C-alpha cells in the first residue's frame, strides 16, 4: 500500500495544521478525550478537485473526513464525506497502526470538487496509546490530462473540419487518387518495416578511410 502515489503525479500544495486534541471546557489536561482534529487548507484560500488522499497512520483507530466546498457566498457548510472509517481493526492492538492508507474519490460520501478545506477527525478510543495522529498527508488532484485531450485532431475528427465549398470541376477524382496514394504509402512502409538488420561493416566515409583505422601489422 505504501507509496500509492504514482511516479508521474504531484500532490496538491496544501497546508495542514498539527493535530489538535479536542479540549473539553474546563477539562484537565490529563484527560485525553481520544479525539483529535487536523485541518487542511489550500494556499491563498484556493479550491481544488480532490481525487485521492494518501497518508500514513499513527495509531488512529477511526477517521472521519469533512470538507468545505466553494459555493454561494455566505457561511460555508462542513459536509461529511467519510464517517468513522476504520484504520485499525482492533484499537487496542498494533494492527494497522502505522500502515499507509489511500482514500479515493469513490469512497467518499459527497463530491470532491472545488474543495476549499478538509478536516480530518481522528478517534482513538483505546487508552493504550498516548498519542495518535496521521502523517505524510498528501492530497492528489485528478489526472491532469484526460486522455481525450491528448488525441490528435485527425483521430477525433472523422470528417475534415471544412469541406471544400465548391469543389473545382477539374479536380481529379479524390477516391482514385486516395487509392493510389495509399498504395504508394503502403509500399514505402513495407520497405521501412522489413529493413535489413545486417551491416556490411564499412569503415570508410565517402570512399576515404580514416588514417587511424589503418594498421601496420
Amino acid at each position: 500500500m505504501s507509496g500509492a502515489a504514482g511516479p508521474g503525479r504531484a500532490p496538491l500544495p496544501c497546508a495542514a495544521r498539527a493535530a489538535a486534541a479536542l479540549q473539553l471546557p474546563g477539562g484537565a489536561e490529563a484527560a485525553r478525550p481520544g479525539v483529535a482534529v487536523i485541518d487542511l487548507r489550500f494556499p491563498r484560500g484556493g479550491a481544488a478537485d480532490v481525487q485521492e488522499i494518501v497518508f500514513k497512520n499513527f495509531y488512529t483507530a477511526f477517521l472521519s473526513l469533512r470538507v468545505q466546498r466553494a459555493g454561494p457566498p455566505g457561511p460555508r457548510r462542513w459536509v461529511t464525506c467519510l464517517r468513522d472509517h476504520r484504520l485499525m481493526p482492533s484499537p487496542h492492538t498494533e494492527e494497522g497502526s502505522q500502515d499507509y492508507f489511500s482514500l479515493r474519490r469513490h469512497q467518499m460520501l459527497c463530491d470532491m470538487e472545488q474543495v476549499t478545506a478538509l478536516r480530518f477527525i481522528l478517534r482513538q478510543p483505546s487508552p493504550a496509546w498516548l498519542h495518535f495522529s496521521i502523517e505524510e498527508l498528501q492530497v492528489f488532484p485528478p489526472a491532469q490530462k484526460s486522455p481525450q485531450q491528448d488525441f490528435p485532431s485527425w483521430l477525433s475528427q472523422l470528417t475534415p473540419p471544412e469541406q471544400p465549398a465548391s469543389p473545382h470541376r477539374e479536380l481529379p477524382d479524390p477516391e482514385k487518387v486516395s487509392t493510389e496514394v495509399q498504395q504508394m504509402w503502403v509500399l514505402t512502409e513495407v520497405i521501412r518495416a522489413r529493413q535489413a538488420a545486417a551491416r556490411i561493416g564499412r569503415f570508410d566515409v565517402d570512399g576515404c578511410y580514416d588514417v587511424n583505422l589503418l594498421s601496420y601489422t
Partner: protein
Amino acid sequence: MAGSPPSPPAAKMAAYEKRRAAAAPAPAAGSGPAEPLGAAAGGGPGGEAEFLLRSGVTAMVREALLKVLEARPEEPVSFLADYFERLVLGGPGAAEAAAELPAPPQRLARALWYVRLAHHSHRTAFNNNISTAYEVLGASGRRRRPGVDGRLYSELLRRICQLGAAPQEVSGALLRRVQCRDHEAVPFDVFRYGVLTCFVLLEFVAKAHALYDVLDGGTGAADKRVCQAVLRTLEEALGGGDFSVPVRYLEAGSKLGPDCLALAMDRALQERKLSASMSREEFLKKATALFVAKVKPVD
C-alpha cells in the same frame, strides 16, 4: 505442356534411363510407403505408381505444383515450361554430369528467375526463393568459397530494375543506396533487403504511373499544383515518425483519405499561381524520391 516441343534429345532420355536404373535398387532396399502404393496399383514391382515414385516424378510434380501455387502465374503453361527447363539446366543430374557450375551469367539468370517466382507480399515464399537465389549465386564453383560478392549482387539488382518501367534515373537513385561494392561480401540479410527494395520500387513506380493517369485526367499533362499537393500529402503521411507504429498508420490513413486529399488539392488549385503542368517524368522522379528516402542505405 502441350505446346512445349519434345526437345529432350536422345542423350537426355538416356540420362533419365540411367538414373532410373541407378535409382531402382535403392527404394527396393526397404522404403516402406513405396511398396503398398505399388501393390495398390496392382502392378507388382513394375507398377506405375512405384515407377513414378522411384523416378522422382511424384516429388518433382508436387514441387512444381507448389511453385505454381506460390507464384500464381498468369500463364501457368509457360511458367511450368520455364520451370522444367530450369530444372533440366540446373538439376542435380545436370550438375553432376557437367561437374562444373554454370558461369556467372547463367547463375545470374537463374537467380533472377528464382526471385521473380513469388510476389513479395507472399512473404515466406518470397524469402525462400531469395534464399535459393542467394545459394545459386553464392555457389562459386571449385573454389569452394560460398557467398555472394558485391558485383553479382549489384548486377542482379540492376537486372531486376530493368524488368519494370522504372526510368533509369529513378532506379539509379535506389541502386546507389542499396548496392554494394564489387569486392564486398554481401550478407544474406542485405541481399534480401536489396532484392525486396528493387521489387517494391518497381511496384511503386507502377502505382505512380497510375496516379499520374488519374491526376492528368486523360489530358497527358497534370496540373503542377495538384501534383505537388498530392505529393506533399504523401510526404507528410510518411514523415510522421514520432508516433509508434499503430498510431502512425492511423494517422496516415486519415491523411490519405479521399476527404483530406480533396481538400489539399482544392486548396492547391485556389492558389493564385500561374497554372503550369508537371510532366510524367518529373512526377515519377519526385514521387520515387520520397520512396528512396525511406530506404535504409547499406552501411
